[in-house]
Each structure stands twice: as structure tokens, then as C-alpha cells.
């Protein structure tokens, strides 16, 4: 999640002479970018609340606690891969960039990576260069690889000015409609809450359409070969995820404790509904892959991760679509990954871009697997597992 607040931004107007507004410019030594400290959390939480959530309310204690847990007590925390705050001329927190340490393996060698998110700047008129300083400070860090998977139009512009293009294969969101009428109402309901009362009518329309065989989007996949899926707990996921990840030359260096920590964070995304973590098995009970998504009947399910054996990705995707449909989802959406993009495309998914994945490294060898689709750097590996995305704080 990368966002720059736009309130109080400078408006183009009559030219003025630099330094002659009557408003004192901060002296160079007064503003600074430094590592996030525990005492900054209330200010960062209030800023987050104003910019990303409800500006009419104070940041709740649960949000403060979560931001501290995420950015100060990350399982892979390293002092020199810290989140950063911009301190303005008055000594106040005027901006923030969240930094999540990420331990990767590249051809079995360890790689230090960092994922940036939650870039926010308060009062741009008085801190016009804060966003640039925060992003530059992040990129100048000691990590071998810098990643963001949530650059919006504004922050993407900053990355582009630095010479970076979005990684298209990792930047698209996909949408697979399951119940057309229900999806239309759910989409409308996100903009206009009262429209949700139409959900039962939409449900009826979709059911009639199904009975008449008119819903061409109804997933009814009779897969080639055997596939069976069931809900699994932490232990089984933790056992199998590293094996599915092994097919990528650039992948997270997850161990049991790390995976447990990431999965615990991913569990609760109240805005998206309850989580489903399902393993798909082939003949003889061999695991083919798994999927993790949040679902709610009559709403759009949010897919966090799909991983599969290379020869079984289609069956895993089909199991997911079948499960989401059986549980009342009107559609599914998630982030594209080269392994599943073609599979989803052939199964009537739409693709669009809401936010981009961008990477930066001085080591071109590290960029090669990303460009060729041989990297696992989003979903559980990126930023989407955090409760910042989809969590409810009250």
C-alpha cells in the first residue's frame, strides 16, 4: 500500500519568488529521515488512520498495536532494515514508509530484500519533498533487493522518475466473476451501501440463470485426473509450502517459525471475510498445491496465495473456483503470478492493474528471475499478508 496524501497539496498558481511566501522554509538540518522508533507509533497510526481509513476518527489502540507489531517486532526484523519516518521542521512526524524485511534464497544463496509499503506524507504543502526523501532513503538501504507490490499511480510515478518500470507479470490483479448479478450488486454496494439490499434479488437471478443453464461463468470443472481438496491447519501448510516454493530460483527463505508468523498475520482480514486454507491432493493423496483466500457469501473473495506443482496449477485453480462458488462468493480476485496467469485467462478471468509491483537492485542477476517469472515475491512473500490490507481496526 503506497499512498501519498493529497490534502493541502500545493496548487499551481501565480509564480512567487522562492522563499518569499512569508512561511519559513525548514532549514536543511531541521528536517530529517530516520528509523522508526516506538515513540513514533501513535503519530504514524494517526497518519495512517487519516490517509487510509477514516479521517474523522482517532487511530484505535488496535491499529497502534498492530503497526508496532508489524514494523517494530517483525519476525525477520533487522535494525538496518527499519521503517522510516520523515521528521518535519517542527520536529513532528510528517511522513512514513513501512519497510518489511524479507529473507530470500536465490539459487540457494541468501539474499537480503526489503518490501516497502504504506508510504504516506501529511501536509504536502509544508513537506513537499518528504515523499521523495522517504523513497530515496528506502532505496539507499543495505538490502540487495527492494520491492513494492502496491505502488499506486502517484508513487509509481516516483519509481518511474527513478528509472524503474512496473513488473507487469506481477502487477495485474485478476477477477473471476462467478455470479454475474451478485457481482454487479456487490460492486455497486461498495460505492453505495444501500444497494446491498438488492443482494437477495441478485442471488435469485443468478440461481434462475444457473437452472436455465444461462450462467456461462459458473465454475463446474470436471478436472482431468483426480483432485480432492480439504481445509488444512498450520502444520500441514508449514510442511508443504517450502516444497512448492522450491520450484522458484528466487523465493523466501521460510522456516517453520517464520511461516507460522506470516500465516498468523494473514489469518485475520475482517474486511474480506473468513479465511480458507485448502490443500489440493491428487491420486494417492499426493499434495498438488494449495490456496489461501478470504471469503464471504454474496461478496468478492480475496485470494492471497495460490501455489502448486507446475503440472497441477490448473487443477488447484479449478478447485479454488469450485470452492468459492460453493461457498456463495460472487467473484474472486487476487494478484497475478506468471504460474497462474495463463490458467486464469483461459478460465474467463479479467485482468487489470490497481497497483504495481516494482523492484530495484544493483545486482542484475537478482532481477533476471523476476523478469522471467521464476520468482516468488508477492502474496505471502510480499506485503499482501499483512492486516494493513483487509484488516479491521476498531
Amino acid at each position, binding site marked *: 500500500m503506497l499512498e*501519498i496524501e493529497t490534502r493541502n*497539496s*500545493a*496548487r*499551481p*498558481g501565480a*509564480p*512567487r*519568488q*522562492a*522563499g*518569499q*511566501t512569508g512561511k519559513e*522554509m*525548514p*532549514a*536543511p*538540518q531541521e*528536517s*530529517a*529521515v530516520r528509523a522508526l522508533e516506538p515513540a513514533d507509533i501513535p503519530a504514524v497510526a494517526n497518519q495512517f488512520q487519516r490517509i487510509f481509513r477514516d479521517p474523522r476518527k482517532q487511530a484505535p489502540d488496535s491499529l497502534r498495536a498492530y503497526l508496532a507489531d508489524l514494523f517494530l517486532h517483525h519476525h525477520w526484523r533487522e535494525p538496518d532494515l527499519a521503517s522510516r519516518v520523515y521528521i518535519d521542521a517542527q520536529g513532528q512526524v510528517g511522513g512514513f514508509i513501512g519497510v518489511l524485511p524479507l529473507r530470500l534464497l536465490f539459487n540457494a544463496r541468501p539474499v537480503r530484500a526489503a518490501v516497502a509499503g504504506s508510504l504516506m*506524507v501529511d501536509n*504536502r504543502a509544508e513537506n*513537499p*519533498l*518528504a*515523499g*521523495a*526523501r522517504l*523513497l*530515496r*532513503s528506502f532505496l*539507499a538501504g543495505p538490502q540487495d533487493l527492494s520491492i513494492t507490490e502496491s505502488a499506486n499511480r*502517484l508513487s509509481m*510515478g*516516483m519509481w518511474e*522518475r*527513478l*528509472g524503474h518500470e512496473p513488473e507487469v507479470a506481477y502487477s495485474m490483479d485478476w477477477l473471476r466473476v462467478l455470479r454475474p448479478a451478485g457481482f454487479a450488486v456487490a460492486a455497486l454496494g461498495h460505492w453505495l451501501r444501500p444497494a446491498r439490499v438488492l443482494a437477495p434479488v441478485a442471488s435469485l437471478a443468478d440461481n434462475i440463470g444457473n437452472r436455465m443453464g444461462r450462467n456461462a461463468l459458473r465454475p463446474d470443472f470436471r478436472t482431468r485426473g483426480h483432485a480432492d481438496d480439504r481445509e488444512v491447519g498450520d502444520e500441514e501448510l508449514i510442511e508443504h509450502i517450502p516444497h512448492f516454493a522450491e520450484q522458484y530460483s528466487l523465493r523466501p527463505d521460510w522456516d517453520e517459525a517464520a511461516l507460522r508468523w506470516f500465516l498468523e498475520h494473514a489469518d485475520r482480514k475482517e474486511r474480506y471475510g473468513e479465511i480458507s486454507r485448502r490443500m489440493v491432493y491428487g491420486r494417492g493423496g499426493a499434495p498438488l498445491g494449495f490456496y489461501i483466500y478470504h471469503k464471504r457469501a454474496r461478496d468478492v473473495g480475496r485470494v492471497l496465495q495460490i501455489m502448486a506443482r507446475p503440472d497441477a496449477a490448473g487443477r488447484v485453480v479449478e478447485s479454488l473456483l469450485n470452492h468459492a462458488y460453493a461457498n456463495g462468493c460472487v467473484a474472486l480476485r487476487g494478484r497475478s503470478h506468471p504460474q497462474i496467469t495463463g490458467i486464469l485467462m483461459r478460465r474467463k478471468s479479467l485482468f487489470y492493474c490497481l497497483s504495481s509491483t516494482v523492484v530495484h537492485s544493483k545486482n542484475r542477476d537478482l532481477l533476471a528471475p523476476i523478469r522471467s517469472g521464476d520468482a516468488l515475491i508477492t502474496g505471502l512473500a510480499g506485503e499482501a499478508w499483512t492486516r494493513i490490507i483487509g484488516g479491521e481496526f476498531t
Partner: protein
Amino acid sequence: MQGDVEASIRDFIVDNFLFRDDRDSLSDTESLLEGGLIDSTGVLELVAFLETEVGIEIADAEIVPENLDSIRSIATYAKTKLAQVAA
């Protein structure tokens, strides 16, 4: 490069950030930030230009309006940095 610093900075800003037709109306002391010509996005491109084309190294703490708010202030800052390197 040093003798042309101000001219090359002006050319860069006019070519990349000025959308007005009257290119000559941008004075050397006009505020680029208050005028909305450069924001956080644009300043990254300006910093990249100063580092690669003018040949100065810019510390994070030096990315402040005092150094980057007008053609004159950018040129003064760049010349000071170049002089420091030469000394």
C-alpha cells in the same frame, strides 16, 4: 559542465516540467515547489539529473526546498557541491 550549470539546469527544468508556452517567463528565482512545477515525484528526476549529468552526489538531508526550490538555488547548490569536490 560547471560553467554551464545554471543553463543546463534551466534547460532540464523547462524541458521536463514546464507546461506553459512562455518558456522564457520562468524566472531564475521563481519557486518551483510553490508554483506546482515540481513535487516529490519530479524532485527525484531532478536529483537523478544533478547526480548523473551535473556530477554531484546528493545526500538525503540535502533534498530540501532551500537547495531545490528555484533555478538559482539549484545552481548555487550544485556549484557549491562541485567546488567542494574540486577543493
